[in-house]
């Protein structure tokens, strides 16, 4: 079992490294998504999507990313189950100690983000990869119109609401996760830790706002 094979700190270190690696994906994905807001013809977005789907480096990297997600999810579950097992009899009075608020809900925010990820996968990735998409022609050539899929999906108020909530929870997950990763890696320093905490908060806010802007702008325009 994982518990016997790896020490608690080893699991936390792997969790942190993979978590930080996955944030790079969030940045790249968001940058491409935001392109859809810049022109009505969706040319920038469709060209970028085409590049991502055909570039051999990105295609290889994609598999590392999948493994990263799986490791982060499985390790998160293993750690959480061990944590529950460490206190078989709970307290009558709920703990009222001061603590990092979002750290208490990493498994919950993580679980909802995971459900979102599955849905998102079915809605975009599977359709783009295996389904048939409409084609659109620009000056630079003919591309599959992934953009129209996004625009159509974001007409559904219910989906937009779920999207926004899931991203907000992702933001909470990042708010704790970012600075926590550095602590787990042993990078705690009286000069740099306060900076890391501020950067982590700003990063999670930027990611949240960036992702949320897209469905909201499309839905309300």
């Amino acid at each position, binding site marked *: 079992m994982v*518990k016997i094979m790896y*020490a*608690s*700190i*080893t*699991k*936390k*270190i792997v969790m942190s490294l993979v978590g930080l690696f996955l944030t790079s994906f969030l940045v790249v994905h968001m940058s491409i998504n935001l392109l859809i807001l810049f022109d009505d013809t969706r040319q920038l977005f469709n060209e970028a999507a085409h590049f991502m789907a055909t570039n051999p480096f990105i295609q290889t990297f994609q598999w590392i990313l999948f493994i990263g997600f799986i490791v982060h999810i499985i390790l998160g579950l293993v*750690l959480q189950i*061990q*944590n529950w*097992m*460490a*206190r*078989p*009899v*709970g*307290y*009558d*009075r*709920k*703990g*009222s*100690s*001061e*603590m*990092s608020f979002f*750290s*208490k809900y*990493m498994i919950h925010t993580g679980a909802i983000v995971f459900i979102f990820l599955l849905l998102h996968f079915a809605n975009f990735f599977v359709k783009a990869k295996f389904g048939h998409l409409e084609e659109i022609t620009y000056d630079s050539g003919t591309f599959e119109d992934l953009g129209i899929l996004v625009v159509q999906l974001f007409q559904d108020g219910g989906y937009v609401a779920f999207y926004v909530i899931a991203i907000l929870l992702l933001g909470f997950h990042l708010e*704790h996760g970012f*600075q*926590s990763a550095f*602590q*787990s*890696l*042993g*990078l*705690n320093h*009286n000069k740099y830790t306060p900076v890391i905490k501020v950067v982590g908060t700003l990063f999670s806010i930027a990611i949240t706002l960036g992702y949320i802007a897209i469905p909201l702008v499309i839905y309300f325009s």
Partner: protein
Amino acid sequence: MDLTLKIWRQASGLDKGKFVNYKVGNISHDASFLEMLDILNEELVIKGDDPVAFDHDCREGICGACSLYINGRPHGPDRGITTCQMHMRNFKDGETIVIEPWRAKPFPVIKDLMVDRTAFDKIIQAGGFVSVRTGGVPDANAIAIPKHDADLAMDAAACIGCGACVAACKNASAMLFVSAKVSQFALLPQGRPEAHERVQKMVAKMDELGFGNCTNTYACEAECPKEISVANIARMNREFLTAKIVAQKA
């Protein structure tokens, strides 16, 4: 002041246990929390009831014997003190105080509010020491130690091993305790020869005993009566990672 105490009663480790309400009256604001429990126990003994079992020893905050999870906080309200140092002025007249034992799988209840904290001793036995040969008293200034390092080592060594960190942690993790014990040696030259071996053995024992994992929630630091910093946890993570990478297997 008059109080209602909701206390966890459990005859033994095998017993299921339950909460029992007690009334205590005429308690001074200046009484310590344990003195208040002594008064309750005297009344229980007079009535022929079984007194409430709780751990205590020095009653001046240095031995680490007292515990108690009071109103959702280890060692009760107020920062940087043990239960024995806490006074009844922290509570309001007529208040109901919920008193529970530390809750963690490696800390089984012995009786009522007493838990078995042998698990901490086992972690220390695994590597929380410096092996020395006996001989003459070494010169105090033979090894130069920077003041800052000496201070940090002393801060870590202030840990009294009470287990409040485990009790406060939502995961019942012992990382603050173990990291304080690892740090007090890791920071000093005398602790370096065995540093890599020590951190690995102590962490392995901690995991084996069934303590939870650290989520960097920092409730431990907030509740520690000696205000041990979570920077020690980062130091232990660093020591552990370094040991895993550079330590040669025997």
